[in-house]
């Protein structure tokens, strides 16, 4: 837990607003209230000067990381030297962060015990966010597949006079024969139908 007397100031930089909110919430729940969130690195030097963060959390794939790090080279923007993580020998923590897609910059001289909970929280929230995004993507693609299959069934029922069950069976059999997904067969069929017939609507 952060020390009550001098809570650490944390700057979160993330172009993904949703993810930034998820991290912010996690840190706030853990008792860190000196949080600043920015979504854009434009004007970041001023933001750093204003908030004087002890820890900066930024997503690893942010194309502006080189820009951010370059500021650590310029004493004008950042008064105190900043390193990635507190202790370079903390390899497990570093690996976990890179795996999760998060990088953290820490002001020199901070104790490892004070920073580790923040970095750990960022890592776990990044992982949770990635999991959530993956599940959302799966759900979305399942919905898409079902829509495609329904449309393909409709085309087969209309053009070949099949019942709905037979239309589905035909799609499934074709997919099995070609070792492809039913949704892929459905998509090809819809494309083909679109090419061969005038649009229905």
């Amino acid at each position, binding site marked *: 837990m952060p020390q009550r007397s001098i809570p650490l100031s944390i700057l979160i930089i993330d172009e993904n607003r949703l993810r930034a909110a998820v991290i912010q919430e996690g840190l706030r729940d853990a008792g860190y209230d000196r949080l600043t969130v920015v979504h854009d690195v434009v004007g970041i030097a001023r933001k750093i000067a204003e908030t004087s963060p002890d820890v900066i959390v930024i997503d*690893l794939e942010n*194309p502006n990381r080189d820009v951010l790090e370059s500021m650590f080279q310029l004493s004008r923007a950042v008064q105190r030297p900043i390193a990635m993580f507190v202790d370079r020998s903390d390899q497990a923590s*570093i690996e976990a962060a890179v795996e999760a897609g998060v990088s953290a910059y820490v002001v020199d001289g901070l104790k490892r015990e004070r920073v580790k909970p923040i970095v750990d929280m960022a890592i776990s929230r990044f992982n949770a966010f990635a999991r959530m995004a993956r599940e959302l993507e799966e759900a979305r693609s399942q919905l898409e597949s079902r829509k495609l299959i329904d449309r393909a069934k409709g085309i087969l029922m209309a053009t070949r006079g099949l019942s709905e069950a037979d239309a589905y069976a035909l799609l499934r059999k074709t997919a099995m024969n070609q070792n492809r997904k039913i949704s892929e067969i459905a998509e090809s069929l819809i494309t083909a139908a679109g090419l061969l017939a005038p649009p229905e609507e």
Partner: protein
Amino acid sequence: MRKSHEIVAGFMPLLDSAILVAAKEMGFAQAEGVELTLVRETSWASIRDRMAVGHFQVAHQLAPMPIAANLGLTPLAAKTIAPIALGLGGNAVTVSNDVWARMCDCGAPADLDAGAAGRALRAALTARAREGAREPLKLAVVHPFSGHNYELRYWLAGSGIDPDRDIEIVFVPPPLMADALTAETIDGYCVGEPWSTAATLAGAGRIATVKAAIWRSSPEKVLGAAAAWAEQEPEALAALLRALCRAAQWCGAAENHHELAAILVGPDYIARPAEWMLYGLSGTLAIGSGATHRIEDFFVPFAKAATFPWKSHASWFYSQMVRWGQVAHSPENAAIARETYRPDLYRSALKPLGVALPSANAKVEGALAAPTPVGSAGASLVLGPDGFFDGALFDPDKLDDYIAAQRR
């Protein structure tokens, strides 16, 4: 059956990633028993971090990056070596149409001559200051430890412009440079291709000079290799170096440029039009306003020992780190920089190929006014011309003198 080496390499979407891309796509890696996976990255920082945790064994890196890492100047730096370079040249200095118009008023040359362009920029800055402009012009580079940063500063300083006082140097990722110029958040930039072409074709700026005019045949990118991995897997590294040498040879042949451009436009590589690649590959650049200009040795992937990791290149980058206050000069630091480059590994890996291997590990930079045969093994070798635009020489044996002469 030969053992297969699995190697994962990070790269940035730049024209000089071509050698790595060709090594994979044209089968040179496979022919050496290397199963090469290429991963496109969004920042040099990300490449460095993923190399530090072992996601990448090797990577396309700015030539000064491994030196900066070994000197402990960057966050999360793991010991890195540079066993091969990925070509010479390839950058351009592009300015906004407004700055170019001002430079033209002051006699800017049409032929990208660095000396004349520098004088014109200096005169334009003086005129601008006289008119009461208070904010300095902003020129962007991609990274503090980059050839771009050092050659831009070398050119400005050599033209009588203080890069810290008369100009503000800022940092912008390469693919965003042209947009930043259009948006007028910057007034010019120094970057690798195709990111100058991106601005000139869009009518957003004019190429004022090029790396090859500031320092001809000068170093730009290297293959950085994790030192620990290179030590554990010397055969894998040697096989990769051979594949990269073959790939560089292929990339350097003009008859392959269309095929290479067609590969680089792929969605996993640079993902921009083939036309954009061909300007840099051919050396005939679209410099702005529909004009083109041919530059000798604009980007050299293979000829003139373009892949040899000269220790004198490492020392020059180090001298500039000292010059611009990034590191304090000491014999120990100078040695760390020199030892980052590994011509010994290059020679031992490439010996079976029968390509030209320079006999020396270092050379006096800027000494060759004309193409000159030099001592080599395997095949004959011609180097140069390699001059700096101000006619200066860099003798790596007189590093202290060079640093002292550049001290401000």
